[in-house]
């Protein structure tokens, strides 16, 4: 195997921050007469090579681990990016297992920027004779998603071409993200894996969890910063309101929670990149820690900004809506806790030496 050079994640972060700073106008989806240039942004991401980062070297990719993606996901969260990359990049995780031809082909499309994926759990979709039938709701995907990756509970995964399905973009409260209702009526599907593999599908879910965890951490950091700016400059009773202990201590608590959240995300990223046995559990846990912290921050930002934070004109609600949507993606928080509880309890029991 050829030598793979590790790309410095901080360089990727700087490049991502610059590009997103130039291209993302976060209010565009909210302001009359404007809309986000999603196609342009996606094209720029492809051009920057982000879709190639975790493609294996033998498929002409850059062979990087999730460590390279983490800063990009974090910057996407800071910018409240209107483009979602995670489902497509998560699909690439399956390449490390026993991919079928359909997956290899899809991966080439993802790397080239032509294919964009929506990931969903099977739910009530039925599989018969190589076709999928049923309805999915609230599926996160880019507006021009081309493929569906459907994850079964038993380690099966299917790829379906969305052009054969009814895909309707729904208006979301969070206008930076687009949720879709998808109706499949006997849509042809191919197995993504040569054999069902729970480890493989678990890794796709964990990738999504971790991407959301970093999105949370990024959004949390940005809205904390902007709230601090307000606390430093807004004056009442002839003094900056940030000098009031009741407010500054709240800010300190949000900072502590942010640092714990980042710690969780970094820890999970290392475990995921190293292929640790508990990586899937740790990724789900990192998402839980970050989402709780982000939502508390985004909620309190509205309050700390007072009346202006309650207006459409101000940006507080952009973060609040993103934080709440992030918390509800891919299953309710309680269900996600229940899913990993057996693994968590088993690990705890081992500690009783």
């Amino acid at each position, binding site marked *: 195997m050829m030598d793979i050079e590790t790309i410095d994640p901080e360089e990727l972060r700087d490049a991502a921050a610059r590009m997103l700073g130039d291209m993302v106008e976060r209010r565009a989806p909210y302001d009359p007469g404007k809309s986000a240039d999603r196609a342009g942004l996606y094209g720029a991401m492809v051009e920057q090579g982000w879709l190639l980062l975790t493609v294996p070297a033998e498929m002409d990719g850059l062979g990087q681990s999730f460590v390279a993606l983490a800063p990009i996901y974090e910057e996407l969260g800071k910018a409240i990016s209107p483009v979602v990359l995670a489902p497509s990049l998560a699909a690439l995780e399956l390449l490390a297992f026993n991919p079928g031809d359909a997956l290899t082909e899809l991966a080439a499309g993802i790397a080239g920027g032509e294919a964009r994926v929506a990931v969903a759990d099977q739910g009530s979709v039925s599989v018969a004779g190589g076709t999928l039938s049923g309805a999915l709701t609230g599926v996160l995907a880019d507006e021009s998603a081309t493929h569906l990756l459907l994850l079964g509970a038993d380690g099966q995964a299917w790829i379906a071409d969305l052009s054969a399905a009814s895909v309707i973009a729904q208006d979301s409260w969070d206008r930076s993200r687009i949720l879709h209702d998808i109706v499949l009526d006997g849509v042809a599907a191919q197995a993504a894996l040569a054999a069902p593999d729970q480890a493989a599908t678990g890794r796709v879910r964990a990738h999504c969890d971790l991407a959301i965890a970093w999105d949370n951490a990024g959004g949390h950091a940005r809205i904390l910063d902007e709230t*601090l700016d307000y*606390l*430093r400059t807004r004056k009442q009773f002839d*003094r*900056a309101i*940030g*000098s*009031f*202990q009741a407010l*500054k*201590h709240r*800010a*300190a*608590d949000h*900072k*502590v929670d942010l*640092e*714990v*959240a980042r*710690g*969780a995300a*970094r*820890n999970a990223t*290392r475990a995921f990149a190293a292929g640790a046995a508990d990586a899937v559990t*740790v990724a789900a*846990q*990192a998402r*839980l*820690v970050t989402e*709780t912290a982000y939502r508390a921050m985004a909620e309190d930002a509205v309050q700390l900004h007072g009346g202006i934070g309650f207006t459409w004109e101000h940006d507080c609600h952009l973060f609040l809506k993103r934080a709440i949507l992030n918390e509800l993606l891919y299953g309710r928080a*309680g269900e996600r*806790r*229940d899913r*990993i*509880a057996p693994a*968590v*309890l088993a*690990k*705890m*029991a*081992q*500690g*009783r030496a």
Partner: protein
Amino acid sequence: MSEEPDLEALRREVREWIPKNVPANWRERQAGDNIEGFLECQREWLAKLVEAGYATPHWEHEWPGGGRSLPEQVVIFEEMARGDAPRMSLFFVSLYHAAMTLQECGSQAQKEKYLPGILRGDVWVQGFSEPGAGSDLASLKTRAVLDGDHYVVNGQKIWSTLGHFADHCLLLVRTDPDAKKQAGITFLLMDMKTPGIDVRPIKQITGDEEFAEMFLDNVRIPVANRVGEENKGWGVAQVTLSSERGLTLVELVERLYGSLWRLLEAATKGGFAAEALDVEDRRRIVDITARVEALRAMVGEAMVRKAAGNEQLGDASILKLAYARILRDFCELGMKLEGIGSQRFENFVLGAGYETSNWMFDFMNSYQWNIAGGSNEIQRNIVSERMLELPRG
């Protein structure tokens, strides 16, 4: 994460050493109504650690096991926690606060006089806080007046850890009442056998007597026992307060991580199976576990930064606040999981840390961390003013 080979070797060495040397039945011997057992056990443990060089890895080269790097010290603390060895409760101030102050700021004569005694088990306490000087430490009022070659000291000190067993005290006194508060403070070493010292243990909400107050009535302390110059004691005190370099948290967080199973034990004490756990309780366990693991990762990263000299302003406050919250939540969850059983009084173990499975005791004891060593409120001031650059009030 893979580790440097020499760190890995040290880790193996300590890991093998602990089970052979930890005082047998230390939990029983350190039980709350058996002070003698606690003292004896701690002394036995210190002697073992000194012999192996694990008590003083942070001291200078010429001392047993001295001259170890910070990452090596971290390994020793981690392994002590993992091996469920007793904490160094009785000697921690001696080995860290006293020794580091002497090594960095003491005279040659002071080092020669006091450092060997620390290895033999002299107990030191801190005489910093006063009833009127807690968070605002620099407002301390205990007065020292020069009389020939002695200072005559009058005043009251409080929250001296295990002060009732102490041989020596690191004492902050006011020598110039007219100077700005930090500028009138002097640092003295006080022999606890000097006439005029009255030490009274403080009974805490747990019933334990871990702290003491000290009443000083015309206590004569030789000028030779002054550390640094007169009225320059505040700077010396900063050295004392930063002497443990975050190692306490390394140990405490490792112990917390190693105690997660105790939640399961609490929940299943009445003979319940883990599978029968209430859904909400299972979810709470998932959350607290996630936060403890995150905290553990943070502490590890912070120590790497510290070793590389990249420590950031406020790092220590963030960690202290995070640990305080998570520890309290952990103890509270254990108490609730055990249910009414947690309310039956059971004797506690001295110096066992915050996780003893005596859940009501642990829960109440966890408040200590929220107050001692700079209260949560002071830490929030540090984070918000120095790190987040919010204006001072």
